[in-house]
């Protein structure tokens, strides 16, 4: 399959970050669906199966990203998820996906700090889609 056969769901409440992420994904060749809130993401998930999802952690509530990961994995266990955030260290909420403990309750496949370069993002996505 080509990159253009994959649709990536991106949720972020910062319109600029959303725009930039979608822009670089589309430039890399993927199709995208973008939403600006947890609520919108949930309604998309309800009726559509993306091939991969990228969720911001803090949207309407501080744990929007966790909840979305959980709901997506419940409905589509094999769809990879990237949790993207800029706030982990600043809020004192520290977590990573390096330990089994964190993996056991954060239902994301990758955790990425925001501000990631376009090529890096493409590489992570390719890895998760096994391209």
């Amino acid at each position: 399959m080509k990159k253009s056969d994959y649709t990536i769901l991106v949720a972020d409440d910062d319109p600029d970050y959303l725009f930039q992420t979608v822009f670089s994904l589309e430039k890399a060749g993927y199709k995208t669906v973008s939403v600006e809130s947890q609520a919108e993401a949930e309604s998309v998930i309800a009726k559509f199966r993306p091939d991969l999802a990228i969720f911001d952690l803090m949207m309407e509530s501080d744990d929007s990203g966790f909840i979305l990961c959980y709901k997506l994995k419940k409905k589509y266990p094999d769809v990879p998820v990237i949790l993207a955030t800029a706030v982990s260290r600043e809020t004192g909420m520290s977590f990573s996906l390096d330990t089994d403990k964190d993996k056991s309750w954060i239902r994301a496949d990758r955790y990425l700090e925001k501000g990631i370069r376009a090529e890096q993002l493409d590489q992570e996505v390719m890895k998760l889609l096994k391209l």
Partner: protein
Amino acid sequence: MAVLKVLVIDDEPGIRSGVTRILRDFHVTYPFMDEDYTFEVLQAPTGEDGITMIENDKPDIILLDNKLPGIQGVDVLEYVRERKYDIVVAMITSYASLDVAIRATRDGATDFIPKPFTPQELKSSIENISKQLYLRKVTNKMKEEGKKIRYQFLSVLSHELKAPLNAIEGYLRMMQEKQSGERIDDYAPVIDRSLQRIQGMRNLIMDLLDFTKIRLERKEEKIQEVDLEEVARNAIVTVQPYAIQMDVNINLDVRGDSKLMADPEDMEIIFNNLVSNAVKYNKFGGRAEIIIDSTDTEVLLVFSDTGIGISDADRENLFREFMRVKNERTKNISGSGLGLSIVRKVIELYHGTIKVDSTPEMGSVFTVHLPRKQVTIP
């Protein structure tokens, strides 16, 4: 050498004795800690017993199973949180349930220990918790010394300042790598957005300056007679361009003596914030009304709008720093999240009060009482 009391609440005797055995000879030390921690383990087979021991023995750490015969782990957690006990709670959980994890984290659990755990896993969790307890102790000590750490404030602030920088950085990279094309015109929207984010950041910094000014400046010499009607008119003029865009009609109704002894800058902060909110969070074609009324003892200010309103849940935290109501209707409205917290602080300096009534979709009413007798201000 300090001893931390660890209370294990678990219905499995094996877990309780295991924890006791593992922690018997365990001690935690860090280069930056001036004392070692050792552990005394207490055991409770049910949540009910656990609560009795919490009251009698005042543990420092609780290792809490969620699935208990009587009341559940989350109930014990809630018990601890409601009483604001200074206890670190780690949940022992055999199954990875995100629902429980999220609820527990909200209720104040700081850690999760998977079940079954190896001695090393338990030790590393206990090590983390001890470090937290130590830092908490240091923080409390600093507070007592008057060096109040505004950690939460600073961490949110750094996030608020970093978000626009990240956005602008991303846009500059797009331009550097010529991702949208060769011509500068290809980047017009990108440049627009960057400028908007810079403006937002500038507003935040201006608000921050107001914020620190309230705390740092001596006021007495600045107190003078201020005509609030004039302050209100200036605030209206400032927000007028935006009001025209939104087609919001602003009405000022002065019903009593509008003069008050105050620092004019403080009054500007109150009016500028509340009048601009009444426009920003209004609907297209809406109305905003400002009433200034007065008695011998106080000045009453009412700012009402026909805007989007505020839900009960959001209203609770409305005056907190960096509180921004996030929903479909507010996502395109820019703000620092500091305005109302600054307004409240200013009003408190004058021993006044501010309250808000609101109906979602109908509008909000902010009512301010400023006493006239408040010549001394710290």
